[in-house]
């Protein structure tokens, strides 16, 4: 037992995808889950019921005793949004590497070429990052980047503004300029289920304003993006996320990642992290 790791909520399934009871892994341990008569359940390997929350189209559980409720995303509740269950992708990397990659914009021109970024528009301007102590979350705001096709609904290149939020160690919420509705934010999340410390299941979820694209077009768009990310995530060395600041060299563009690593260290979240240089 490690309270700093166990007492968090973790996504373990997309509710619409639970057709029969099944086994999965959470933090290296077997759990079973299912849904009967509209109620979902999760049990540990000994058959004990674990706490559950159904939110954002996903089933959440915790092997410990969460000392706070699962976070909320008030923006996602506003009417007119399409809620998109993207599905899942299993990735052979630390759950923390998956979250950190989601927080990064500087890779867009090279990994999501001609979609989320393109040379020569590679510069990352200074943005604001802070740990909001009152809610114990990492926030990056005023993040701006030029994008050839920011969303399925975008026509041509635009400068997109982003806000990033890390409300839990293996979850991130991204708010970005909404092409059809200036002044509103599209919400794209990355919910990461730590199967083990070097293997994770990633459940992206979206709450978008998009009246034109079909559901499968929006899902395909996000899956394409994530397949491109996976080619990176499975080829980083070491597989675990280094928390020792001497191990990897960040620049100003990496302020969100630096804050994320610092915050993980502060709250003692070491699952999937590498503490000593190697």
């Amino acid at each position, binding site marked *: 037992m490690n309270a700093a790791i166990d007492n968090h909520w973790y996504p373990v399934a997309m509710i619409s995808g639970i057709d029969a009871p099944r086994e999965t892994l959470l933090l290296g341990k077997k759990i079973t889950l299912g849904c009967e008569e509209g109620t979902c359940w999760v049990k540990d390997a000994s058959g004990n019921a674990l706490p559950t929350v159904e939110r954002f189209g996903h089933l959440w559980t915790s092997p410990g005793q969460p000392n706070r409720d699962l976070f909320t995303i008030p923006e996602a509740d506003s009417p007119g949004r399409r809620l998109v269950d993207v599905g899942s992708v299993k990735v052979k990397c630390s759950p923390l590497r998956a979250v950190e990659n989601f927080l990064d914009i500087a*890779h867009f*021109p*090279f990994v999501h070429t001609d979609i989320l970024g393109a040379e020569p528009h590679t510069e*990352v301007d200074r943005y604001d990052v802070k740990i909001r102590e009152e809610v114990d979350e990492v926030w990056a705001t005023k993040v701006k980047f030029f994008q050839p096709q920011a969303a399925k609904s975008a026509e041509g290149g635009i400068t997109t503004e982003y806000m990033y939020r890390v409300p839990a160690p293996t979850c991130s919420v991204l708010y970005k300029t909404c092409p059809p509705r200036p002044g509103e934010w599209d919400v794209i999340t990355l919910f990461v289920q730590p199967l083990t410390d070097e293997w994770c299941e990633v459940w992206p979820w979206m709450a978008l304003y998009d009246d034109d694209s079909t559901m499968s077009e929006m899902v395909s768009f996000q899956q394409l993006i994530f397949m491109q990310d996976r080619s990176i995530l499975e080829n*980083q060395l070491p597989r675990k996320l280094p928390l020792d600041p001497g191990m*990897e*060299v960040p*620049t*100003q*563009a990496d302020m969100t990642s630096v804050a994320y690593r610092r915050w993980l260290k502060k709250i003692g979240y070491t699952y999937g992290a590498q503490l000593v240089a190697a």
Partner: protein
Amino acid sequence: MDWVAVALTEDVPAGVVIPSRIEDTDLAIWCAPSGRYHAWSDRCPHRGMRLSHGFVRGETLACIYHGWQYRENGSCDYIPAHPKLTPPSTICVPTYACTEADGVVWVSLHQTDSAMPDMGGRQPVRSMPINLSASDLAAHFGAEDFTTIAVVSDHDVLFAVQPCTDSACVIHALASPDADRSSVSRWLEDLRATLEGVPA
């Protein structure tokens, strides 16, 4: 272990980068447009991405993750997220001695004054991975060392062997200039099947 063969030059033409390894050391082997070969640690100092997935641009190797470019001496030359910044000289990829001789790319993981192994005028045929450790392969042929193993066969073959793991190595095979490459290649595959205990 001084010089170890890591590739045939024909498999790493100018502008190309490939992954390779010598025992526990992961390597990115690349050839600059100038024709110079380089063997680097396969890990970008920025976020640990394998540089062997990167791309050669001008006389630099760039990481595929964020496009950081590294000069031939391993020092970082350009960070696309900060185009006006001159990267500090401390951002540097560890590099190893690397040179080309007899159509083979040779790497030494430590400083060495020793000469490249003598290939006796033979020419490269092909590289072939095999599920057998380099030392077991050497033992099979009664060789003291795996760096070069001369094989008595109809083809006057010489192996330059690259140790990879406890159960795998790569044979870089050379043969006399008048040998028929395709029959040497078939002979190699039969040899592999025999050594791996798999029916040909």
